[in-house]
């Protein structure tokens, strides 16, 4: 049995990879909810994005084409969400549920119709994927610089470009939200759309922009799943990540850096759970697999209840905007 420390670094590397889809979906939710549009359709949009990425990367033989397609399709679904919940003031949760169903159904339907592999897209060659980038000196570092070198090689180096993009997105989002006109208005429209309206800014336009940004990010998240982390789309491959991302968002109280930390934590729990599974724990002995499976959920509940206090969402989130009384 290796020591806990030996396995920590690989687990950290794995945490980073597992947290990326959460990170994209969570930030998509952040933009959307900060603008007052609740989005439980993150899951569906990410799924549709993953499908588009898998399919188009296959046909074009190029991951960038896949990425663009993924963003496009996720934005299209965002527009549907916007049309229902912004233009027609429908219930945002219902619209999100519909989008989740729609994405689940259509990806499987089209996948089967086009490729006949049960909703899967064809296995992609490496040229059509975002591959892991090994940073200079990673191998020598691993070999000769002990734990630090190991950390460099495993955690810093060796991820696909989308991973680095995700981490770049965090400060960028912060900057957009707190330092730009768009961000100021976005935050305002989620708190008090009346104020925005009377300031002469179109509430609808802002909210559409926000959901489109959410679409772009879901598209990238989906691409990561399908053409970076795996070699193609698989039916239902988001496996609830959109929902976990939503939990992370609440957990982070709709703030960018906390959101990143939360997604990393969830990624870590997932990775650690897999890693610890099957290894007897000191003092406790063999623990059923289910315990590790349940760990992230239980922890979320406990942390939500005990440590982060009351998470107050943007005040206008989920409420359709009307001028009427």
């Amino acid at each position: 049995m290796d020591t806990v420390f030996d396995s920590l670094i690989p687990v950290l590397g794995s945490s980073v990879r597992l947290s990326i889809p959460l990170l994209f979906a969570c930030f998509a939710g952040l933009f959307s909810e900060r603008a007052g549009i609740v989005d439980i359709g993150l899951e569906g949009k990410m799924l549709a994005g993953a499908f588009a990425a898998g399919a188009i990367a296959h046909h074009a033989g190029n991951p960038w084409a896949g990425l663009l397609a993924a963003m496009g399709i996720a934005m299209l679904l965002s527009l549907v969400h916007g049309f229902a919940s912004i233009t027609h003031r429908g219930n945002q949760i219902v619209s999100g549920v519909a989008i989740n169903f729609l994405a689940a159904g259509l990806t499987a339907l089209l996948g089967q119709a086009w490729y006949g592999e049960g909703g899967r897209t064809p296995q992609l060659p490496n040229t059509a994927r975002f591959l892991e980038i090994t940073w200079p000196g990673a191998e020598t570092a691993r070999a000769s610089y002990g734990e630090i070198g190991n950390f460099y090689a495993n955690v810093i180096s060796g991820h696909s470009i989308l991973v680095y993009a995700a981490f770049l997105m965090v400060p960028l989002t912060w900057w957009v939200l707190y330092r730009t006109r768009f961000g100021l208005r976005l935050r305002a429209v989620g708190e008090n759309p009346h104020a925005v309206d009377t300031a002469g800014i179109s509430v609808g336009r802002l909210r559409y922009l926000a959901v489109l940004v959410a679409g772009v990010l879901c598209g990238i998240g989906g691409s990561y799943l399908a053409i970076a982390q795996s070699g193609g789309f698989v039916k239902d491959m988001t496996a609830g990540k959109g929902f976990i991302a939503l939990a992370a968002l609440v957990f982070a109280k709709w703030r960018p850096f906390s959101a990143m930390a939360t997604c990393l934590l969830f990624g870590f729990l997932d990775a650690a759970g897999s890693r610890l599974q099957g290894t007897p724990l000191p003092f406790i002995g063999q623990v059923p697999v289910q315990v590790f499976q349940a760990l992230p959920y239980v922890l979320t509940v406990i942390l939500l209840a005990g440590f982060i206090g009351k998470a107050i969402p943007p005040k206008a989130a989920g409420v359709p905007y009307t001028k009427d009384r």
Partner: protein
Amino acid sequence: MTHPDARQFQTSMVDGEHQSRPMPAIELVGIDKRFGPIHANRAIDLVIEKGTIHGIVGENGAGKSTLMSILYGFYQADRGKILVDGQEVAIASSQDAIRHGIGMVHQQFMLVETFTVLENIILGAEGDPLIGKAEKRARALLKRLAQDYNLKVDPDAVVSTLSVGEQQRVEILKALFRGAETLILDEPTAVLTPAEADHLFRILAQLRDEGKTVLLITHKLREIMAITDTVSVMRHGEMVVTWPTREASVERIAEAMVGRRVLLQVAKGPSLPGRALLSVDHLTVKDPRGVIVVDDASFEVRAGEIVGIAGVAGNGQSELIEAIAGIRAASTGRVSLHGKDISGEDPATLRDLGLAHLPEDRQKVGLVLPFDGYENVILGYQDDPTFSSGFLLNRKAIASMAKTLFAGYDVRPGNPGLRAALFSGGNQQKIVCAREIERDPSVLLVGQPTRGVDIGAIEFIHKRLIDLRDRGKAILLVSAELDEIRGLADRILVMCGGRIVGECLPDRPESDIGMMMAGIADLSGREATRFDR
């Protein structure tokens, strides 16, 4: 200003002989607006001269806010046109209005509460894609305005931590930041203390003197008399009359508003206080952050008297009432009803014991707006056995109660089956009053009973309160209107900084009471502390 009421008013800075050359800043021609079945504005014509303060009065629901919102581009008129500086303009959005130099301070503030003052001010007028420069500009402007107009606010304070008066200042600053030439204020003083109102009017006068145009909506006729140059009266969606203010009088305006003569002061006999029904001993209340908001308050309210609590808004009056009503927990001290200790009891129990509460915010607290009249009539009394048979609600009993109350208080329309949201403000207040007063409580707590309510309804509500007193009940009244307190109360307590700093009789000069409210004079013998938040 020659009107006698105006002289009484503390704001004497207004120069009544202000000469206004006939150059209209704004002209409204044939403005018509319907909301479904409601005809909110009926073919309204109005000329607003440049460099004047133009007052608009009218009962609740007369259509004042609607008209102003049309001018500000928040709503679109069904018919009619708008001229700015003699040019016909299309105002399709607030952006257009702002572009034509129109700014508005809404009845409900349009501020983002989680934002800082600075962020609120630049919102929508950022200029650059980045907000840094706009913030700098706004900061500079704030500094200048703070000097020029004594319009002081901390630019980095989060709006939700500001007092109502300060929030209003932010609204005005917002308009000025956008370069407004015409400033619309919708009931700006409804939530202000006399001193704050005074301050506001000084600013408005100064703006007017600099050539800006001010449109002022208010229910307080004395304010109209004191500071406006012109006054227009609206009734049921129509513009009834426009007078130069010096040709108008409070009585004439009131009559034009309501269409009949109104009593401005309800007659009441002397009070005959009996034994104490409500006593409060050393009550201290802390807010969730642990700040003391009511500090060691002690007093009694006796049968057959109305005790008024005067004070600048935010000095603990609301919290005091809420603590007595059982909505807010007190940290120390005790409250007794008929000599029985009721500290810590919940509102339902207190109602059973005969303590009723007419809350200051009817829409957020006193009513459930989406519920119909029937259901609102039992709010708080849902556990009363007359309204329920076993598990089920007794619909018949509720219906007959609602009918009685609606008829007795002349609630219009008299149909309790309508959602509360559909009633106008005055009528909503009547529903709440009817519910609380007609239960014949032995003690009634009343907060701001006539805030935003028109003259006709004020008269009615005041009468009911005096009736209740005359039946030997105890009433504790909180109001931001010093006039109201002086008109109704038999005894006045003054609160400042969470403490009761003085007690006096209603005939005490207004200036004395004002001094106490400001915490300057302390008639209770104790040191008055300034209340800082």
